[in-house]
């Protein structure tokens, strides 16, 4: 078994209200920062044990779908870990 690392980015769905993004955006704008918009999600780094990359991806995806992300209100993308 080998070790594979993933970065899971979880973001609020475009059509649902991003309460956190709205508050941060308003605060930044109020300070006069040239910020156009802001959305806030979260980043999860996962280390997965698997025989190959493909199997690791299946596991990472399953974990992201079942726990890391609430599909009713969020979407996720699977990518590289951020150092």
């Amino acid at each position, binding site marked *: 078994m080998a070790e594979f690392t993933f970065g899971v980015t979880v973001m609020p769905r475009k*059509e*649902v*209200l991003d309460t956190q993004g*709205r*508050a941060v955006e308003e605060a930044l704008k109020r300070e006069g920062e040239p910020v156009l918009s802001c959305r806030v999600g979260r980043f999860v780094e996962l280390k997965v044990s698997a025989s190959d990359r493909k199997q690791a991806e299946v596991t990472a995806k399953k974990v992201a779908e079942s726990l890391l992300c609430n599909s009713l*209100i969020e979407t996720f993308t699977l990518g590289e870990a951020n150092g």
Partner: protein
Amino acid sequence: MGQDTRDNAELDRKLRHYRLSRDEHRRIVGLIGREPQGVEWALFSALWSEHCSYKSSRVHLKGLFNQSPRVLQSFGENAGVVDLGEGERVAFKMESHNHPSFIEPYQGAATGVGGILRDIFTMGARPIALADYLCFGRPEAKRMEKLVDGVVRGIGGYGNCVGVPTITGQTEFDESYDKNILVNAMAVGLFRPGEKVFLSKASGVGNLVVYAGAKTGRDGVHGASMASESFDKESEKKRPTVQIGDPFFEKLLIESSLEVMEQDLVVAIQDMGAAGLTSSSFEMAAKGGVGFTLHLDRVPLRDATLEPEDILLSESQERMLMVVEPSKLERLQALYHRWGLDAVAIGEVTKDRVMRLYWKGDLLTSIDPDLLVEHPPRYERAYESWKPKHRITDGPVLMASGLKVGEELLKLLGSAEGASREFIYRQYDGHVGASTAADCRESVGVVRLKDSGRGLGVVLGCRPYLMRFDALEGGRDTVAYPSLELAAKGFEPLAMTDCLNFGNPERLEVMTSFVAALGGMNELARELVAPIISGNVSFYNETEGRNITPTPSTGLVGLRRSVEELPTSNFTQAGHEVFVVSTSKIFEFGGAFAEKTKLEPRAMGAIDRDSVKSLVTSLLAVEAGGFIQASRVVGKFGLGYALSRMALGGVGAEVNGHSFAELFSERLYEVVIATSLSREDFEKQWATASGGSAPIRYLGRTGGSILKIGSDVELTVQELTTVYHRGWVQSFPNLAVNV
């Protein structure tokens, strides 16, 4: 296929989409004299939904006792208002958010709290207390741990952030809620002396219709009509975009809106709740006997792709609709702006009773609001008169043998039904507002009224196991039990709200229990002069053909002279004399214990309103003298369990021996009292107060660190406490208390 068949198929498709029946379609055509067009379908769908129109319950709600000299506002407004005297008034209401909470527990519960708070501050009252009535399935049921966790976090997440204390609650578990949980939230708001009550009735031709608060998104489109249907696997697919609550935004909306009202900048105001802009605008116009011109393209949008129908049906949270005099618009906008919120004029009030909806200059419809608000169908769903079951003429009601009292008590304290709820209320801010005199740890939540120093007590009612046993007695109990809880702490019951959670009203047995329960509730409300001044009906709590326990939850408020020296719910001092006082006539049944242990159901007697009233009056008189130091109404699992709970404060007691049936059956009603008076003095006081109308029985004396009941029970307070807290952890191993 002929043209007719195709037209019929098309019509059926449309009716299904808008959740209207063929009969309702005929009614619409009759009322407007033509086929509905365009957005009119959506308007009828929303306003004629069970949720908005109360079409199955209205005929029964009409007869509710809803007036007393104290009632300033009853049904028909955002919330009911009661006069407390001395210039102080409270607005309160309870509402359900069952279906959304089952789909997405955190947001469902959070937006439930947000919605009920808006009903309160919309009237100009500052919210001062929250209470939650929750029914969950068995702990081992699918998703249940996650549902409990999500709902509790959602309520806390919203209530804590907006800064309204959660001061009381009730949580029940039963299989009938496995696939249909109940989340009912109650909010109480205070008008201080001199503060004005605002209503939703639109007036003033030429006044502006102003939209304030959050932008509109696709949230919960068709939510109201969905809440009016049974749950099935299909609901998963047709569920609307989940409504996201933002308590931070709501907090800004509360502060800004209260300022706007304080400065008298609005004529009328209503929040956009179920069916959003549609229900708020149509109801405001219908109440005022006026019309609105509305430009839907002026509604601030979060999502530019929204169509007029979406805008009309969106249930985006934290939005208000108001009628404003043109000369005051600028001040109003400036005030909202200071709080970081937008307010936009989207239309105006017209003289004729016509709603004219425009989209980018095009007239979408012009329709009389009364047709939608005042003329939905009224259904007289079939029901039967109530027949008591399981009645016997000679006791005992509990036929248990070979059981040991002590062991059974510990089992009950350690069960999901009987264990500590600390896990839940520890996640709620119970003290923000710095007015809380008794929180969720006590049987009555109490806030102090700032100006008069008096206490406002809040307590919830409805015992599902009793409803399952007998809906009529259960209905009576939804008023009697909380009234006694209030009286036992010295609070005079003033008024109540309800949240009638039932299954599918098209089923005979559901409607029969609805009518019986409402009748029982109404009878006691009238007797105790606790008018029902606000509330909500939640039908179709049915999943895959299974209906929930009929659950008419209630919320009562009561008033006490002060918040000093409140009786506690635990024994707090050694050497107090312990009594049981009771109603002169008793309804006695095997209770929660019989249900839990699957004993044969048996009952005797009936809840007697006169003797309940006498007991309430006697308790109030004795408490006013300062003679009650601790009190607890005997409830679930009977006297033995009540005494065990009273010992959880750290002080034990030694009381007379009782038979097994006496300790575990439930006798409605009994109240345990601990007093610092001597035995003789208290008996004298009680005799004077009750005039012999409420029997009293001596039990024993508090003290030590052991609960001793005759020679059968000897349990240390430590053991009781450990089991009581461990019970929760054992029921929900993944939701541990103290990590």
